[in-house]
């Protein structure tokens, strides 16, 4: 019988990190995610598992602490919210270039700029199309419940080390702040030095006589070598597209219309589906769980089946571009969303479907 607890999304991130055997968390306060750092400091895992928890002097410092820790083969992470994630972009690009495993949690708030502290989903582009400079991708997981938020922390570390790439959990202020029951799993012990050296022979653990020195860098001034390196990164992202796509389909078998939504928007869409079906409209929902790699294949399939798709996201229309690409514009695809921190209502979403897709 697993331990059950009523938790806030942010707290679930912190609890999951401790239980997954994370070695370090480096963060900085910003609304709506400061509870992650606060919870960790209150739990004092440095006294139980030996996990390092540090409030850094800035988000920039924090991501560079993650770089340093990840370079040693340690399980390290940071979290922030939109403007703070912008600050981390240099560090994230460096980590992708240097092939470092780590978790970055973005509890998205309204932007651009200082924006608002209320939720939004307007960091989709930033998370999936770069944000930082250069040819790289983040593997991006979008939870839509507190349980998923919890589960994705351990999964993120596994994927990060599998691909030697930073992984992002893209959640939002709704999920970060709401409370739901969570099934917790047992404590995983932190890796020993021997385990790290075995699992991460590339890490800087101290040059012993039996091997060459390990260098962690993203710099190569020799163009031929740098091209080879970038192509290698590209091959990694191709592998992610082959193997790591995750999504959920609800009510799609007989769907004539489709909602496409992630995170908290997907939850609201489920209510809209209920309302629509009660009126006789056959609506389904495709919920991408990985935003990169994007579920192109199921969308391409559904595009042949449905008469139209409404992409519901709390922004001006970001994921809709990937939906259109995946669907190859075979069907009518429109966007509905609220911005500025306003959450769409189930009725508002259904109304938009009726106006923009069915009627329009």
């Amino acid at each position, binding site marked *: 019988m697993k331990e059950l607890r009523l938790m806030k999304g942010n707290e679930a991130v912190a609890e999951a990190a401790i239980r997954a055997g994370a070695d370090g968390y480096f963060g900085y306060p910003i609304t709506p995610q400061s509870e992650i750092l606060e919870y960790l400091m209150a739990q004092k895992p440095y006294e139980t598992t030996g996990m390092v928890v540090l409030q850094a*002097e800035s988000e920039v410092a924090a991501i560079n602490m993650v770089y340093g820790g990840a370079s040693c083969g340690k399980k390290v992470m940071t979290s922030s919210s939109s403007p703070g994630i912008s600050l981390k972009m240099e560090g994230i690009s460096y980590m992708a270039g240097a092939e470092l495993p780590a978790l970055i949690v973005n509890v998205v708030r309204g932007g651009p700029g200082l924006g608002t502290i209320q939720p939004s989903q307007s960091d989709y582009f930033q998370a999936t199309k770069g944000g930082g400079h250069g040819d790289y991708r983040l593997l991006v997981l979008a939870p839509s419940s507190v349980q998923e938020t919890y589960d994705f922390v351990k999964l993120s570390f596994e994927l990060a080390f599998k691909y030697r790439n930073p992984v992002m959990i893209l959640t939002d202020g709704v999920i970060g702040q709401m409370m739901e029951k969570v099934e917790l799993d047992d404590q995983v012990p932190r890796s020993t030095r021997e385990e790290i050296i075995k699992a991460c022979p590339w890490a800087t653990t101290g040059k012993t006589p039996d091997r060459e020195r390990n260098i962690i860098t993203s710099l190569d001034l020799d163009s031929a070598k740098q091209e080879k390196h970038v192509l290698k990164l590209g091959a990694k992202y191709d592998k992610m597209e082959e193997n790591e796509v995750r999504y959920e389909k609800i009510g799609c078998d007989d769907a004539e219309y489709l909602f496409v939504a992630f995170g908290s928007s997907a939850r609201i869409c489920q209510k809209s589906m209920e309302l629509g079906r009660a009126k006789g409209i056959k609506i389904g929902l495709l919920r991408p769980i990985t935003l990169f790699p994007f579920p192109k294949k199921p969308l391409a399939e559904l595009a042949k089946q449905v008469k139209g798709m409404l992409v519901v996201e709390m922004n001006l229309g970001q994921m809709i571009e990937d939906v259109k690409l995946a669907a190859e514009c075979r069907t009518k695809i429109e966007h509905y969303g609220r911005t500025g921190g306003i959450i769409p209502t189930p009725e508002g979403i259904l109304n938009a479907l009726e106006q923009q897709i069915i009627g329009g």
Partner: protein
Amino acid sequence: MTREEIIKEENLVYKKTALFTDKALSYCPGCGHGTVHRLVLETIEEMGIQANTIGVAPVGCSVLAYEFMDIDMQQAAHGRAPALATAIKRLNPDQYVFTYQGDGDLAAIGTCETIHACNRGENFTIIFINNGIYGMTGGQMAPTTLPNMKASTCPYGRDTKMMGNPLKITELVAQLPGTYYVTRQSVHTAGAVRKCKKAIRKAFENQKLDKGVSFVEVVSNCNSGWKMTPVQSNKWMEENMFPFYPLGDIKVPQV
């Protein structure tokens, strides 16, 4: 005795440390970087800690330090080395950890990371090469460029009204309780090199005590950036840099 009779293995008194890789140093002729690299590596060799040392290289002329030092190293983004080192040391307290940084890296873009690592009293060593100029990018003004000193972005000399005064970051961090040992050295004469070596050795040994940051500034030349010969640059440094950045211990632990 003939030269051939003297040059025998048993008569060897000094050679470059084996902890250098085979790669030729990419620094300009006469640049102090090479000397300081050697002192750091000699220290690591003599302490027997090659397998227990992790270094962090900056952005600057010494961005490629990891090509020359036969130890595990990480390349940091510009200014961020103390953040990397903070995590490395806290996650691996038994490792000797050092950052190796230039003046732009440590005292311009990295000022926040430098001050806060020192303020937290991290248990690692900071080696700070101060040559009052941005060497790698072609000789621009640095936070430590002297008043009236010329550089490519202050071609008429540093105008303190427009551009501010040089930043004495070493004196600043010495005021923080988190710094344990703060010193300013140079490597332009044999005597200075030997003193600097002692300082670097102390800065590494201090990590056994876990009492805070050991901060070693090395006032050094940049003959390319200053547009002089190496010998001229050392003389210019004595006459101009040392009066502004006086050599010696700034903070030593009270016994």
